[in-house]
């Protein structure tokens, strides 16, 4: 009994997810032919909706793409700032972002810098930056 109810509940949630995904997909589907542009995966440069839907549904169910928590982000910055100055210089930020992990492209780097860097000190005060970003999203 309880299992059946659970299943129904999950089915309803999945149906809702499907609707939400489809609507969002259509905003990016300029050609109205059920594909969106993407830079990886398929050699044609498009992802078909049929392929996208199950992957995205699972991702939503598993809550895979939740925004990263503030404190996790803060600790990450602190690791890069061992001297605990409270900031990273522009050069340091650029070095880490373009040389470590999955490096930023030039466009991504420029974009991040435009909002993050305090023009007077030429540094990023990461606490303030994180707070600002969180506010903007909410």
């Amino acid at each position, binding site marked *: 009994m309880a299992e059946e109810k659970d299943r129904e509940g999950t089915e309803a949630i999945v149906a809702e997810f499907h609707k*939400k995904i489809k609507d969002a997909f259509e905003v990016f589907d300029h050609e109205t032919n059920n594909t969106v542009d993407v830079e990886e995966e398929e050699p044609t440069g498009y992802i078909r909706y049929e392929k996208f839907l199950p992957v995205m549904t699972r991702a939503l169910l598993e809550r895979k793409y939740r925004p990263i928590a503030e404190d996790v982000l803060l600790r990450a910055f602190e690791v890069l700032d061992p001297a605990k100055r409270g900031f990273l210089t522009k050069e340091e930020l650029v070095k880490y972002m373009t040389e470590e*992990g*999955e490096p930023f492209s030039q466009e991504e780097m420029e974009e991040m810098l435009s*909002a993050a860097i305090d023009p007077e000190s030429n540094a990023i005060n990461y606490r303030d930056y994180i707070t600002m970003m969180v506010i903007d999203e909410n």
Partner: protein
Amino acid sequence: MDCGDSLKYLVNLANTLKAALVIQNWYRRYRARLRARQHYALAIFQSIEYADEQGQMQLSNFFSFMLENYTKTCKEDSALVSRLFENTMRENKDRQDYVGLIEVPESYDGPRLHFPLTFTDIDLLLRAFKQQQILHAHYVLEVLFEARKVLKQMPNFTRIKTSPSKEITICGKFQRRNGLPSENNPYVFNGDFVDRGNNSMEILMILLVSFLVYPTDLHLNRGNHEDFMMNLRYGFTKEILHKYKLHGRKILQILEEVYTWLPIGTIIDNEILVIHGGISESTDLNTLHKIQRNKMRSVLMPPMSINEEQAFDLRRNKAGSSTVLPGKTESEKFSSEQLTKHEWEQIIDVLWSDPRGRKGCYPNTSRGGGCYFGPDVTSKILSKNQLKMIIRSHECKPDGYEICHDGKVITVFSASNYYEEGSNRGAYIRLSYGSTPQFFQYQVTSTSCLNPLHQRVSAMEFSAFKILKERMLSRKTDLINAFQLRDYSRSGRISLAQWAFSMESILGLNLPWRSLSSHLVNIDHDGNVDYMSSFDDIHIEKPLKEIKSSLIETLYRYRSDLKIIFNVIDTDHSGLISMDEFRTMWKLFNTHYNVHIDDSQIDELACTMDFNKDGSIDFNEFLKAFYVVHKYEKPEKSSN
């Protein structure tokens, strides 16, 4: 380094890597969310713009309905309707009647043009407009008459060729220029020169003057906004009447005619077709070449079938006596002043259609005119007419241009920031001899181009949601009814799914409602929607306390259509219509639009609007009174 140190070193490295990854992942997701927000805002702007264009269809049907029911209406109504009809049978306007009668006073310190026009005049205009000066009506009319004279002699499609020394620039919507037009540097402007912003007049003047200076090197194609009825809805008429209080009406009359003489398109190297909108499966260049294009007055005035008796009556009403010409029947004569339905549709298709990925040809329901055409239609029409490519405009693209249908259709849209600061880039195309088209993109911004992306997206979002909420407000009653239908327990709450479904079906806008919901309505932790909360912070200001809310809402919702109807009735552009005309028009509107406002309410409304009790109504004042108040903002008139 000993073991301990190298271990520490490796741990450090790993931590640094992890930290960098966290930050990069976070930033990329943030950026993706930002892009999604930008696209959502654009989708909102676009769907509302197209829904407005769809409203055109209804208005057009209304006019047809009025004209077709002409004989069935009673005496007062028929006078009104025949006056409308008169518009379709206007005589040729004589230059002397207009320009000659307008003097330019000594005290006028704006730009003075010298005919025949030269490059100096273009320069003069540019500098004057930069200083916010207005060109005197005398010169405006001179330019329009000259333009009409030159355009009349041009064929429906101008033909140009590239050559090794010659590159052609194609602009979708006028905003920037890149070097002066010349024999080796010709320009094609692909329609929609007017109707956005407050400087359409200045832009049009510069374009027409430039055209008159370089008539063989600057080519103008007609767009769907080169249509006097579109101008009524989208603001150009208002701009003209505001800037030229005395002579605006004359300018409007000649402008209407100039529009009809604009060529339909351009053909480059006999293989590239440049037109404003697109094609349909029945597009036939042979027909289009032969059409008398100046008979295409407006998308809202499709050709009417009319019988002998009606035509005779109209002539008599108009002239006061019968003016039957020997040898031709009335209806024949009338028909010869119109295009055939087939011809009219051919031009509408060219000015209004949009390409889509789906195969086939379907009516363009978003716009209410033209069609959606698929890649198969493109292939068929291109080969039938021995062409290789279509270059068109008509749709705003985020990157300023877009290629589709396997490279055979290019959209070029030159107005950057079309909806809002940061909404899109503009682009133009350079075609050179024997090579593929080159695209140039730009984004014209003022100081805000220095703003970081997230601020620009926030601004755009704010604007988009504001107009979306105004839209919701104009359908408030219907929306609430739909919500309540699903609210069995009368709790004021329904599920998100039910809310999204209601929104889509009532507003008719294809938007991702679930993703937008948090901006539009309050949602509780169960995921249920408090549907009335959307209307907490927004309401329509009542111009007069005595009017019922339902009437207010109807008037607000149809204010755009009403404005057009009023303006058409007001043939002398005085801004006033008589009480009788108002009542008659309202009765017809009532029936056709199926609104439920009874006659007594309208009478009451008419009387209250007649402020000085002289039997006439200033409808601009009337319509201006219906503006939306956003609770957390200073009251501002909604843009009409």
